[in-house]
């Protein structure tokens, strides 16, 4: 179960608080997956008491509202990432970035499908640059019209700032440098980049972890 409690001393009217929270959650807590199971109890609450003073945020078109949304979203993303870092049995923290989609929803559905794939997650645990499993999950993402195999590319992006490792370019497999792939997969942090098109399109980011023996041990031991 995910629980979250956020508090601020900024003055925010209840109506704006609701839309600010909903907006922040879309790109943070609703963009993570550890095991693909949605709990009965997930709740994130936001309280604002205005104790620091200043002009109340009561207009969703104001510059303060926009700034608050940005601050809150970034903050919620950082909190959500901590949850993924503590995923049961996790050994890897994986960012899935899907670009070039027809819509944000399309990009997010593809990212979410990859994040839930047991075969992708076990490949990551096994340090296997298995782009076939990533592509397979991309292809069965439900309700997504913007996946065209001939335009789809998949890369691993190292977190040390070095050049991405291209695995598939416009539907054609690359000759993968296995040594470099292994080195990238040794790292705890990894980014999978899926370009649905080279054209400018919408982007979504999702965070997940790998799937290890330990996850089974923990949850096989657990009794209701």
């Amino acid at each position, binding site marked *: *179960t995910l629980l979250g409690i956020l508090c601020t001393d900024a003055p925010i009217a209840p109506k704006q608080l609701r839309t600010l929270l909903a907006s922040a959650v879309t790109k943070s807590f*609703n963009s993570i997956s550890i095991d693909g199971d949605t709990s009965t109890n997930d709740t*994130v609450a936001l309280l604002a008491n205005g104790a620091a003073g200043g002009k109340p945020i009561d207009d969703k078109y104001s510059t303060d509202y926009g700034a608050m949304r940005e601050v809150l979203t970034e903050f*919620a993303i950082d909190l959500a990432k901590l949850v993924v870092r503590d995923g049961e049995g996790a050994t890897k923290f994986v960012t899935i970035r899907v670009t070039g989609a027809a819509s944000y929803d399309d990009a997010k559905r593809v990212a979410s499908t990859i994040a839930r794939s047991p075969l992708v997650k076990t490949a990551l645990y096994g340090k296997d640059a298995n782009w076939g499993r990533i592509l397979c999950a991309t292809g069965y993402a439900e309700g997504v019209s913007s996946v065209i195999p001939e335009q789809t590319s998949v890369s691993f992006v190292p977190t040390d700032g070095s050049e991405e490792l291209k695995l598939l370019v416009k539907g054609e497999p690359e000759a993968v440098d296995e040594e470099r792939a292994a080195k990238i997969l040794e790292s705890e942090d990894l980014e999978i980049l899926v370009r649905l098109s080279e054209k400018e399109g919408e982007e979504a980011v999702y965070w997940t972890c790998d799937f290890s023996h330990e996850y089974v041990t923990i949850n096989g031991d657990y009794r209701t």
Partner: protein
Amino acid sequence: HRTVNQIRTYAAPGEGAIPASKKKYVPTSGTYPLGFRAGSAHVGVKASNTRFDDLALIASQSPCSGAAVFTTNKFQAAPVTVTRHMLKRRSGKGIRAVVVNSGCANAVTGKGGIEDAITMGKSTDQCFIKDDNGEDDGEGSRTIVMSTGVIGQRLPIQKITDKIPTAYYNLSNTHDHWLSAARAICTTDTFPKLLSRSFTLPSSTETYHLVGMTKGAGMIHPNMA
């Protein structure tokens, strides 16, 4: 176990030592919002938890705006239902606190579970009413209720309500109190998740603050609305 060394148990948040690789994610200090305080208490929601705090309380010293998003799972736990109705009834106004227990989710517990969640909220409200010289705004509960842990078991509600005043009197705005509250909501988590931040807004000179705590390690694929 050899591979990742992550043996976990449900019963006692904070029982296990924080793995060395995770210590960097636990803050040693913070800057917290004015007028909010955090507290915790040991209930022993799980009988096997004999030492560690498993009840957290976050409170505002004045009534505040409140909003929440909830799971879209059709089997919504009692605290989800109760809190959603409370926020709707109050239109997100006049909220005072969030009370959270770990160890039992109060999920799939029928009408009795709903009554337990209402009782948790009311018991917390009573602490504020006492401190506000018996004054109540007459619009019902002002407390957001959350539970996490085992599904399908009733809460030990008497044990919880007995300890809500303890958590209330423990309220403080120190870093240690916020961290203890973050730890008290954990289940199989290996470390408490707490962040704080200062920020400014374009049309004001004030410095504002944000604090956030979260928990979760398994059964995580949120789809909240």
